[in-house]
Each structure stands twice: as C-alpha cells, then as structure tokens.
C-alpha cells in the first residue's frame, strides 16, 4: 500500500506544496512585512518577477528601490568583482537620476535601453539578463506570452540576474512562468500589494506597505 503511494509520489507530474526545491536566500526588499511573506525572505533573484499595475507611477518603483540600491552598491554574490548594472528596458517615462541617487542608487551603473518594438523589448531584456553583467533588468512589456516569460526566466537563471517585468493589469489572466507575481492596486489609503503567485510561498495581500 505504502509502496504504491511512494511510486505515485515519485511521479514528476505530482507537485507537492510541502516539498520545496532548494530555497535560495532572497534579496531583502527593504520592507520587512513583504520579506516575511516571500519564500527565502526577499525578492527571488535569478528568476522572473512580474508586477502588474493598473497604471504606472503608483509606487511600483518605490517598492523596488531599496533592493536596487543594495544591488548597485555591492555585488552580494562575490566579493571581488565589480557590482552589477541595472538595466531599464523601455521605461514608460524617464527614470529621474537625482531621485534615483536620493534612493541610494549608484548612477554610474544604470543602463537605459529604449527599443522601438515589443519584439526588441524582449530581445533586449533577454540579452541583458543572459549577459551576466546586469544584477537586475527591469522591463516594461505589454505583450509577454507564456513562452517568452519562460525564455526570460531561463535567461535570468543563466545570467544570475533578477528580471522584473512591469505589465498592465490585463495580463493577470495570462499564464506566466514568473517565480513571483504581484499586483499593485492604488487606493486612497495607499497602495495595496497582492502576492498572486509565489513559487514556494502563498498568496497574500499586504495593505499598508507603501
């Protein structure tokens, strides 16, 4: 009886919530409340994170700033090589350097890329992710299908880079290979962060984060 159960559980198609593949330490987000909800205690680096918003400017950058500041200041993975770059692919507005510096980000390590078509956005993001020089790649993509997200996920693993995709709320219906999916809702009380999908974690709603 137990042996047949074991056999069933060995089947790779059976996914068990309790069994979590090697949990890597995450990148501290700077928001202790959020860190507690994320497996690994922080942002999942070397993976794709998706952030869905109704509109841009509601706090999605503030959410990332402490983590980006840490990434641009030092390279957590090695103690001798230079810290990584942060690539911004197709940002909807101009990331404003004085404000970035106020957040503690090293401006000499910013790379702004403005591709013209959605195909080029994904290509640029993939190049930056797999290059191994970018610690984080932020990109704004309207169209990101399942296959593309899988490619980017693999590129992020290959280049040891943190991929962050910003997408409109409409994309919530589409499947995605992202390790982490967040939804940001702006309310009069502040921005509500909703963890929709988290590999190895649980969906949660954080109301008073930002």
């Amino acid at each position, binding site marked *: 009886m137990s042996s047949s159960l074991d056999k069933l559980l060995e089947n790779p198609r059976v996914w068990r919530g309790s069994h979590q593949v090697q949990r890597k330490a995450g990148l501290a987000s700077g928001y202790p409340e959020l860190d507690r909800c994320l497996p690994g205690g922080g942002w999942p680096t070397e993976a794709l994170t998706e952030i869905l918003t109704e*509109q*841009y*400017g509601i*706090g999605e950058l503030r959410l990332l700033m402490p983590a980006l500041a840490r990434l641009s200041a030092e390279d957590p993975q090695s103690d001798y090589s230079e810290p990584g770059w942060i690539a911004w692919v197709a940002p909807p507005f*101009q990331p404003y350097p004085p404000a970035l510096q106020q*957040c503690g980000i090293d401006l000499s390590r910013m*790379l702004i890329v403005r591709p013209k078509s959605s195909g080029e956005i994904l290509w640029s993001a993939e*190049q930056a992710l797999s290059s191994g020089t970018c610690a984080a790649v932020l990109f704004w993509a309207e169209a990101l299908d399942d296959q593309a997200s899988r490619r980017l996920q693999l590129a992020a693993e290959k280049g040891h880079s943190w991929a962050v995709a910003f997408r409109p709320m409409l994309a919530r219906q589409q499947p995605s290979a992202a390790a982490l999916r967040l939804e940001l809702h702006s309310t009069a*009380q502040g921005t509500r962060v909703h963890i929709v999908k988290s590999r190895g974690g649980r969906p949660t709603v954080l109301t008073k984060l930002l």
Partner: protein
Amino acid sequence: MSRAWKSPATARDATSTPLAVQQALPFVEPAPLVNPLVLTPTPVQRLWFCIWLPGLPLEASRSSDDAMAIVEEQQGIHRVLLADAKAQSAGVMAGQSANAALALLPTLQLEERSLQREQQALEALATWLERFSSFVCIADRDVLLLEIAGSLRLFGGLRPLREKISNGLRQHGFDASLAIAPTPLGATWLARAGRRVCIRDERNLKRALRLLPLASLNWPEGLCASLTGMGVTTISDCLRLPREGFVRRFGAEHMLELDRALGHLPDPRNSWRAPERFCADCEMAEETSDRELLLNICRELLLSHEQFLLARQLGTQRLCFSFFHLKGPATEFHLGCARADRSAERWLELLRIRFDQLVLPRPVIATRLQSGMTQALQAESACLNFHTANDRPARRYSIAQLAERLIARIGEQSVHSMTLIAEHRPQYAWRAQSLLSDWASSTLSEFRRHLRRPLWMLPEPALLPADSGYPLHQGERLRLLEGPERLETGWWDEDGISRDYYTAVNLAGIRLWIFRNRSRPSCWYLHGYFG
C-alpha cells in the same frame, strides 16, 4: 684614419680593405672620434629572414584552376615568363612565345604580367608578416626581409618561427624559398640560390656564401657574362680577385655589395609600414543578393581587417561597410562598438545582429570595408579563476559588449547611461551619456538630499486642466501635500524658468509632482510621478 664602426669585428676587416676602395665610398663619412667607450658598444646580433618568391608573377594573379602562364613583352614578342605546374607538364616553358605555348596547350590561360598586382601581393604579404617581426622590409620586387633576432624568444625559437612563416606562406598560396643569415644581402643571396639554410653566426656566413653561383646575386647579365668568361663562377672566385682591379673594371658598387653581404659593411634597410587605416574591397564576378554569401564576404574582409590591426597592436571603434550596386549609389552600413576592438569574431557577431535589418535596394557587385580611426588597443586583464568555479560562472560578456550588441540592433540613441549635472532646473539636472564614448563616472557625487524629486519624470511637462484655480488630474481635483518649492533660475539662457513646484496626490493615492508657472499663474503642469 679614424672611423666609427659598429663592432670591433667589422673595424678589423675594414682596415684590411685597400685604401682605393675605401676612398671610392662616397657615402661613408669619417665620423668624429669621441669617447672610445661609445665607439665600441656590444654588437647587436641581427638575424635576417629572407623570403624569395620566384613564382610571384603567377601567384599574384592566380584566379582559376585552369593551366595558366604569365607572359611578358620582350622585344615586341609576348614570351612566357612563368608557367604553372599544369602548363609545364604540357610542355610550356619559360621563354616560349605565346603562340608556341598556345599550340602546345590550347586551353592555356595567358595573362599579361602586372607589376602593380605583384607589388600589391607583396605588400599584403608584408602586412601579414608584420605579426612576426617589427621590422619587415620589401627588399626587391620579389624579396621580403624580416629581422627576426628580436622575435625568436616570443615564438619559441628559430624552428617554430620558421615553420609558422613557411606554413602561412603556403596557406596564402605562395611558394617561397627561405634562408636565414646575419646580413640581409647574405640571406637574400642564399634564398635566391635555393639554399634552405640557417646561419646564425657571422663566421659561418663567409663559408656558406663562398659556394654560391654568381647567378644568385642578381647582377646585370653583362657583368655575369664577362666574369664567367674570366672563369669566375662563384662568390669565392670573386673574392679572390684583387679588389682594386675589380673596382676599376666593374665599379665599386658590386664590391660594396659583397662587403655588405659578408657583414664587413653595415647594411641599413627601411622598415615597411602599412597604411594605418584599413580599406579593402572585395569584388564579385557577378551581382548577387544572396545574404549568406555577402555575410561570408564581410567575414573575409573582417579577418583581413583583424590581421591588419593585430600587426599594429591597434583597435578601432567604428567600421563602415559599403555595398556597391551596378546602378545607383552604394548602400552604407556603419557599425560601432564600445571598446576599441579588432576581433573579427566580435565584429561579425555585431554585423549579424544588424544584418537582418539591412535593406539592399539592388543586387551587390562589390563590398568595401573601411575602418574608422584606429587607436592603441588596451588589453583587458582577466581575473584569476580562483573563486569563479564554485558559485558564479564567468561573465559571458562585459557591459561594453552588452551595450554594443544592443546598439547594433536598436541604434545608438536608444541605449545610454546617465549622469548628474549641477543644475537647479529639473530637466537639466541630468544628461544621457553615450556608452560608446568613455563613461566618466558621475561628476556630482551628492545631490541635495532634502529636495524631493520624483522617480518618474515626464519627457515634457503635461498641461493639467484646472477647475477654479485647482489642478485636475484624470478629472479629479488634486490635493496639494507639500510645497511650494520655488525654482526661478536659468535667466542667462533662452530656457529660464520661474515655477512653483508642489507634491500633490490624487484620489487614487498616486503622488504627482506638479508646478505652476509664475508668469501665467492659471496654468498647472504635471512634471513627474513619485512612482
């Protein structure tokens, strides 16, 4: 008489030269005697590598696999100068008239000798040889000389160097006769005589040269004939003649040549220097639109470009390909990279990224590659691989390489980094910085921290509608949180501002950075989001 000689050995030999010959040397000026210590420095041992290309006229114009011969006009008749192996096996020989050769082999391809083409081939070869020595010299129409004493250590000795050069020559399609000797003329004569020798010591040189026939000296035919008539057939016979009489009958010039070949007199040479900018064409027999073929041609051009730069230890940041059409203007295609580079691989990778987007209006008949300004190559030192193995694999490429790949695909204007500028006007407080130029780190290290600035900036301020003096955003009245921060500056140029900036929040909780122009108080503008 006092004379400044390079080495004691040559000085001793020179004193044995009869006075008459020495006075016949118009260009050897007696040098003023200075400190004797300076006059006798350690002799610099030089070693000359001679490449004689007897088949150059043929090899320079080889274009097909058919039997081929080069003809040259001699006294009004076209005579065969050189025939390749296939033609020779059919009986075609040097000296035959063109008609006789065609009668023997009707399919024979005859080509007129072109000295210009030979010179080009020789220069291309000299360019290639610059990788082996810093001193390459085109000594004659078919002779190349390399000074290799300084290269022996780098290439691991004489034998590997010789093998490298002779293999390379074979790959380039040249059949060469090689010889190595301490004097340039000695090496040339040995090579001309077909002696595959390597003489490193000057003392052995005389013995090796003695046996050479006069024909290998490339002296005028009349001179050789009269010497042969006197029973003088080798160099040793020549040396046995009384110098004074030899000089009087045949001129000092040839005696001096002998002295130089034996190392009794210095023999300075000019070093060949290839032009510093690369430009090469590749012409096709017929027009083509085959992109794969064009890419291959570009690859060939890039490879020769790489060799060109390698010999000079240079790199370049820009390349320009021109595709010529039979009608209409040429299509130009520019490539740029962040760090000066010469690697054909890397340029080809960039070319591939861009090549898909290239529009060729017509088929292409010729391709040209021109390099931009060259600059000294800065080698990048790689880090030791002590730690990388365990946790982090080596980087695939540097930020410069990433940038140039992105630029190759989406254009130089669309990829940049940023730097701060000490300026109060928000739109001028920063500047995009090209990644292809040198990226100086931000000059302004610390921005004024107490000022609130939004993370998102609009490229241009957007006019906000107003309702009885209050700004509206998405149809709702904004609540002002902070402000005003007055910025009134820039009067010294055209773009002066006079604004009151506020932080505002809309009903959805989004914080905005808005301003009101002081000159036109009724107008509100949105300038950024706090993100």
